[in-house]
């Protein structure tokens, strides 16, 4: 399969990301600097979110711009279960992910008839609807004031730590699982179905692939990890606000590492996050709270430049340069937007 080959780094370079992961795992034994760890945590955070997004967008070609909503469902579910019933967020994390998956399947079932930008639009509308509902459900979500996760000190059973190191390794575990799942998908029939749908939905359907079903599978896997990251965020930041975590801007932030790094690749979103997240974190810490949006100006500019000069992302560009004989990922212009 040429398609499969062209979506991966050349074999000779395949060890590079692995080396990076091993180095990342070793960092806490070298430094316990809280800021360094925070930046690393944020790198992993956006890496796992973008990796999850890329399962749906990069492999199955469905560009959701509403993933922040599923993230929010995960974060709020585990937090509210913890506040109301004292259920540990470790458990709530999976309940939240389950709930987000169920909701995503309903939304997906309704929306997957729409193609291209129309699917993106309807996911934005869904996410904005949920954000506004959460913003107005005062008793449930704290409304515009936001929701504080109750502090329970150094309490590993409640997914709360005083040190950043346990957070770091927890997130690294989730990230590695997400990478492993993506790897398995890419090397399976499922992945081939996803890519067939991405390249040409009509052709895929005519070959007997139940496209709605496989889009839903891609969505469910993608949303599951997105919601897990939502709970992680709740436990790490300990504060939830619909405008911060369910906005369109956040949905774009989820997508950006994959777009810049390379969609439909295993390491693209990780590389994208390694490049982008420190930029955002450093800008934030240098300029301070008054200029909270500056990193989004940088992100927006990077997004524009990426589309203009590296439309397939960095990984594909490197792969194409190392293998001049083979074409980079073929993508066609799709005029047909709305399903009949």
């Amino acid at each position: 399969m040429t398609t499969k080959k062209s979506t991966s780094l050349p074999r000779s370079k395949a060890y590079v990301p692995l080396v990076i992961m091993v180095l990342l795992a070793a960092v806490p034994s070298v430094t316990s600097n809280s800021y360094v760890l925070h930046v690393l945590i944020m790198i992993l955070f956006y890496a796992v979110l973008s990796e999850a997004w890329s399962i749906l967008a990069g492999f199955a070609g469905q560009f959701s711009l509403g993933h922040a909503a599923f993230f929010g469902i995960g974060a709020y579910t585990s937090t509210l279960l913890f506040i109301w019933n004292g259920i540990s967020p470790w458990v709530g994390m999976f309940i939240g992910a389950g709930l987000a998956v169920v909701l995503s399947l309903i939304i997906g079932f309704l929306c997957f008839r729409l193609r291209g930008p129309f699917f993106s639009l309807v996911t934005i509308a869904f996410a904005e609807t949920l954000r506004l509902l959460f913003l107005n459900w005062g008793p449930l979500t704290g409304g515009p004031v936001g929701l504080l996760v109750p502090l329970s000190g150094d309490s590993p059973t409640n997914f709360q730590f005083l040190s950043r190191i346990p957070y770091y390794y927890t997130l690294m575990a989730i990230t590695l699982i997400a990478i492993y799942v993506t790897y398995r998908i890419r090397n399976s029939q499922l992945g081939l179905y996803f890519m067939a749908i991405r390249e040409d939905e009509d052709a895929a359907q005519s070959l007997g692939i139940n496209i709605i079903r496989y889009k839903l599978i891609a969505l469910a896997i993608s949303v599951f990890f997105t919601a897990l990251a939502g709970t992680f965020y709740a436990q790490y930041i300990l504060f939830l606000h619909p405008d911060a975590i369910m906005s369109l801007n956040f949905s774009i932030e989820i997508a950006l590492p994959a777009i810049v790094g390379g969609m439909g690749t295993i390491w693209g979103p990780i590389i994208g996050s390694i490049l982008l997240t420190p930029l955002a974190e450093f800008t934030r810490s240098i300029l301070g709270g008054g200029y909270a949006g500056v990193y989004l100006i940088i992100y927006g500019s990077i997004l524009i430049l990426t589309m203009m000069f590296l439309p397939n992302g960095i990984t594909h560009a490197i792969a194409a340069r190392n293998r001049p004989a083979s074409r980079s990922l073929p993508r066609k212009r799709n005029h047909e937007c709305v399903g009949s």
Partner: protein
Amino acid sequence: MDPTVFEQAIVSGILIGGLYVLISIGLTLIFGVMRVINFAHGDLMMAAMYVTYWLFTLYGIDPYISLVVTIPILFVIGSVVQRFLIDRVLAGPQESQLFLTLGVMLVVQNLALLFWKADYRAINTYYTGAVIRLGGVFISVPKLTSFFVAVLLTALLYIFLTRTRTGKAMRATAQNREVSSLMGVDVRRVYVIAFGIGTACVGAAGTLLSTFYYISPTVGTTFTLMAFLAVVLGGMGSFTGALFGGLIVGLAESLGAVYVATQYRELVTFVLFILILLVKPSGLLGRSRV
């Protein structure tokens, strides 16, 4: 159900709908001519609102007079975005255009946030609070004035599209790019003009809106989605479709605000949007072109 409440909602719906029409026509023009879905549409409107705000606050220029400034400025911004950014990705896959306009959205919105903070601002002219009473219905003077100016601009645009050579070239390009190119139409020039005019439309709407609506850096996204709703309702790329779509959305929001709850006004837009896309994605009037 109080009949005057109903009448009041209908009147405000039509008045705001007139502005929605102008915003939607801008969006549908851009989509119709070059098949680009412009996610930055509402944010460019927000930029126009700030231009109007500062012209009024710093120099005391009346918002309606500032139209002669905002329309050209927004035309230039739109043309530049098309000529130097979007033009490069037009031949690529559709998601490239989508992400690029999202990038423009992020930049414009956060630049505004950087310069002017998240504060809500409003323009207070001597006629801001003025109302005319018609039977039991109160009509806000700035809303009424803005409505008529929007109708006038829409009519001018219609005449431009149907009577001038450039307008005809735009419609020809919308119908078939290859053929119009063969007939001697400079398609790239048409694209630049179409994007410029589409942006100028939303800029004019922003100025008109700012006479009675709050101004903030994040005001754009809702209007982008509102315009998409109106355009999808009427059929993507259709001028008359955008006319009907804009009015319907204006009425729906206004009635929704009265009979559901004011804070859910935006929610009505989004829920309608989802329903329309799901039930009839090709629009109520079927598909037609600019």
